[in-house]
């Protein structure tokens, strides 16, 4: 099985490989996303990697008109807001992520509870490859 440490570096490298990976406590079975090295339920320290299906529903969201420089470089601004949200995954954990495939200029059309599926947004190449976790509405609802 995977020998990678249960930290953010491993989590982000998995995202580069289009895998959404969390950690599960071998003792009590608690699941964590992003991965935690120590179980906050039972204090267990033996964890194992678990791949999540990447399906869930929208729990909360916002349409951001004034973003940080790295989002502005992607072309977002006051007239082209992007959407970020909290996604409640089928496995019972949550993720914060970009929400794609919705119109940030029409927040009234974005509904809490919308079914979503994972999308991996790759930026850069080779050593400088970074992947942003995103979700989009499921095809055909």
């Amino acid at each position, binding site marked *: 099985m995977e020998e990678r440490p249960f930290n*953010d570096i491993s989590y982000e490298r998995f995202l580069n490989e289009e895998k959404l990976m969390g950690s599960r406590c071998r003792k009590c079975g608690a699941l964590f996303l992003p991965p935690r090295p120590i179980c906050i339920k039972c204090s267990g320290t033996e964890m194992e990697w678990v791949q999540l299906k990447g399906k869930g529903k929208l729990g909360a969201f*916002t*349409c*951001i008109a*004034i973003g940080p420089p790295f989002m502005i470089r992607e072309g977002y601004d006051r007239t082209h807001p992007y959407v*970020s949200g*909290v996604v409640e995954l089928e496995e019972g954990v949550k993720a*914060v992520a970009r929400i794609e495939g919705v119109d940030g200029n029409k927040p009234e059309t974005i509904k*809490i509870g919308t079914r979503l599926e994972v999308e991996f947004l790759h930026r850069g190449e080779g050593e400088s490859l970074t992947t942003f976790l995103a979700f989009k509405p499921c095809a055909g609802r």
Partner: protein
Amino acid sequence: MRGRRKLGRGVAMVGAGMSRFGMFSDKDSKSLFAEAFQEMLSTVDKGLDLRDIDAVYLGNFTNDFFVRQGHWGPIISDLLGLTPRAATRTEGACASSALAFREGVFAIASGFYDIVLVGGVEDMSKRSTEEVTQGLAMAASPYEVRAGFTFPGVFGAIATAYFGKYGATREHLMNVTIKSHNNARLNPKAQFNVSIRDIMNQRIEKAKKKGESIPTWRDEKEFLRDPKVNPVVAWPMHLYDCCPISDGASCVVLVAEEIARDFTDNPLYVVGIGQGSGKALHAKEDLTYFEATRYAAQEAYELSGLGPEDIQIAEVHDCFSIAEIIHIEDLGFFKPGEGYKAVEEGLTRLDGAKPINTSGGLKCKGHPVGATGVGQLVEIWKQLRGEAGERQVPIKDLRIGAAQSLGGTGGTCTVTILERR
């Protein structure tokens, strides 16, 4: 009911001051702190000899980023001529000086020091809005930053969760904004000491002078619904839901209870302090409350033997309008999901049963992040001593006030209760 925590000895506040909050191209952290310090000295009724100050605790979040200079403890102690006495900087994002206050209280309660200066400073306006947004986002979790969240964005998402759970709408948030502006209108230290109505009139006058079409807003809410004057920052957070970028400083002097009356006949006693820490956004069980505030409040209530019903006025950390509603619920003033109704009914107004943010709050007084926690206590000082001027709350026998600070997205929360005896 009192808990198991206690202070080794009593601590009192005998002086409090703040600079004007605002955006000042000609003022730096040192001049702002000097301004706050001079006002603080003028409030110590029987006088304070600088040489008697044992140590300094200074809250500052991120001048490192905003003005490219760190290590502010000794810079401020040198400014005041307090070297070589100890100067310690505390960092807890927007709650940084609330932590300085708590450290000051512990230092005296332990018996180590008798007189300490506690304050905060932040100099934010020398950078672009985008850079400030990026700087403040350093207090969020790395996952939130990666997902594109800004601070208004985090509170925007929290608002959608609150709306979904309790049926509140954007219109309810406007009630918070209108009230904050009405209070700040009466606060000469506030960054925006104007009411929404004043702003509407100013805009109408300006349009008349320029020969432009005259706006026809019927009331404050119609003004706030107008996207031309109140654009989206991070939906549903609009410009008037968000605290501004501010420069400012604040400070108070704390002394051991047994010597308090050497400085004033009217000291305020620190009866409750509490601090909690919180999880990142994705790990919260529910986005509609802050676990860390509830924990800090419980700690402060238990230390003081008081409950939410005993708190007569409070300053809460309204970095965004939705935050004020959540905080007044977390402090136990109103039940979860009832805060927005209390604001709508006017209970939190200056003349209401539970006045909240009489200073105008972060929204209107300004939010120089490192100065905010102690800045809130400066307002409580003025109110409890009956020195708040035009905005003095009309409560008879006003004795007990509280302040609540929140750092990051709820990562650090504090509650402080002050009492006049």
